[in-house]
């Protein structure tokens, strides 16, 4: 049971991170890969 719960939490976290990254890349809303980017809006296409 513990395995299932923790596994689901970890899987959910990966899915959320993946979805968030995909959304950013897809919408080109922000730079997906520049940490320390002084302004996310600067990365708009």
């Amino acid at each position, binding site marked *: 049971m*513990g395995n299932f719960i*923790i596994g689901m939490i970890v899987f959910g976290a990966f899915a959320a991170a993946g979805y968030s990254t995909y959304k950013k890349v897809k919408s080109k809303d922000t*730079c997906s*890969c520049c940490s320390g980017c*002084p*302004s996310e809006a600067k*990365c708009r296409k």
Partner: protein
Amino acid sequence: MKIKIALAGNPNSGKTTLFNALTGSSQYVGNWPGVTVEKKAGRLKDNKEVELVDLPGIYSLSPYTLEEIVSRNYLMDEKPDAIINIVDSTNIERNLYLTTQLTELGIPVVIALNMTDIIRKNGDVIDNKALSQSMGCEVVEISALKGIGLKEITEKAIALAREKRQSIPKHAFSEPVEKAIKEIEALIKEKVDNPRWYAIKLFERDKNALEKVNLSSDERARIEAIIVSCKKELDDDSESIITNERYNYIGDVTKKCVNKKNKTRVTTSDKIDNIVTNRFLALPIFALIMFLVYYVSISTVGTLMTDWVNDVLFGEIIPGAVESFLTSMGTSEWLNSLILDGVIAGVGAVLGFLPQMLVLFFFLGLLEDSGYMARVAFIMDRIFRKFGLSGKSIIPMLIGTGCSVPGIMASRTIENEHDRKMSIITTSFIPCSAKLPVIALIVGAMFSQTPWMASAAYFIGIAAVLVTGIILKKTKAFSGEVSPFVMELPPYKAPSLKGLLIHMWDRGKSFVKKAGTVIFLASGFIWFVSSFNWSLEMVEASESILASIGSKIAVVFSPLGWGDWKAAMATLTGLVAKENIVSTLGILYGFGEVAEDGAKIWVLLSQSFTQVSAISFLVFNLLCAPCFAAVGAIRREMGNMKWTLIAVGYQTGFAYVVSLIIYQFGTLFGGGGFHIGTAVAMVMLAVMIYLIARPNRRPSKSKEIWKGAVKTQGG
């Protein structure tokens, strides 16, 4: 009723500061011109019906650079309901030039006389009433930084927009020019909604205006005849006639409205500049400042905090607590491994460097906000000029210290296509903040007793830019005259602690966010491919999928001294995001492993590299192709795939050659003997020296045309 208000003004006049204050946003503000290259929209904090548009800074409505075109097109095509014209009151004469053009657009204009607190401090006086009468629009004193006059300026702008009260330009040109403009106006009045503005632009032979007014060949000929006749009468070209007459008018206005306490006063900024931009002292001071910034961030204050985060937080507290929790939950071995050896080792390894990054962000913010970074551009321009490079590429590089993506985008301010492409290629050589964990990791693991190593990474980037500039400038694709560089040096300002903390917070937040998404995902992936073999059985890392791929790729990096598959795969994962180099090494080298002597953190890593191979690894990762986001920015700015591939290919090839030379010569001088690799490195070095020293394809005229960075300081 929805109202659209544009913020227009000269570069570095405080538009973005005002925009942030009015909308509550936190757009990047820099104390140098050219920070804003795209328009940004936001809603007024107190009135969501009002949309504010922050336009890139422009000196006039005659567009010469891309960001000037952005501003002009917005004003001309989208017709905002009102314009807040931000005027830097410490530099009023130059700023009013744009005002004379804005008032001709037929859009209500209100002047926001910014930085009036500095004017008062200097003991100068500006007669707002007289200024308002002379310019044909209302004037409000503000200080965007201190929040003075903000309510008044928005209320005035909203009222003007509601009343649709157009500004009436008070300035008139000389009689022959007015006559010519009236004649052109009569010819085009049916074709455009603002005939006077277009008439002036057509008189100036503005190409964009000519395209917008649908003229027959006969009408064009008549307009040309009018211009030629006026030119003959005044003995000057049409654009200069208009410019001179505008400045003459502004000169009269400032004489009437501005009363300077001491006209020849040497300001504090001047005194500081006499030292920091001194011909002989400037470079040593710059080198010392950058050394101190990196030394304090990476080797002293930052390290103390990073060591605690690495050793205690991610070394003991979190793994210990998570392991106990997982054991109590009875989770299986693979899940424990994924969480502890994958996620915590990978993400933790990157987050461990957050304190050092925050300290660096703080100091970089301090240099930017104080105005010193603008001086760096001035100082570097002297060096760049000597090598025939455009000083304009310095601004993208300064912005690139935060992130290469906006740095690459800032290259669009360079008009000359060759110089722009060169700038796009070289910007990512300057270490961005994502490369900082890599620098900190290598310096911490291999050079803890060599404090200047971290700052050396910055200077390696500058050297790479210079060498690339010299080499490429001599090729057919990049030869030719360089863009002249004129830059305004803003007065020094004491940065506010709040502003610096916001800078630090924004950048740090973005770093943590990335650790929680891209790095987290990559850590999970790296754990999977380093823990399973092709039959999907859990194995040791050395028998994993990653090892089998890595060992084939690693051969390529053997001549660079780090032909180990782990280092090779870390470099490859760095293409997704540079921090991934650290997270991958964290997973593969067992982040938090403890050595026999009790030393923690990166003990296995330091055993896998020699000092020379570590430098080679660091240099390659600093100079090779940037992350995918930056490659995307290169693609967008280059406009085609061919040049994108050339840029990325050059960066990677250059990084390879430099790392090869470093490793092979380092090994030779370290007593490692002469090998085939040494011979190849010698040939490469000889080729590089030839490419640097060979004569130019065409004699550069840069020395004749280049006046260098011009200091036009306000105050």
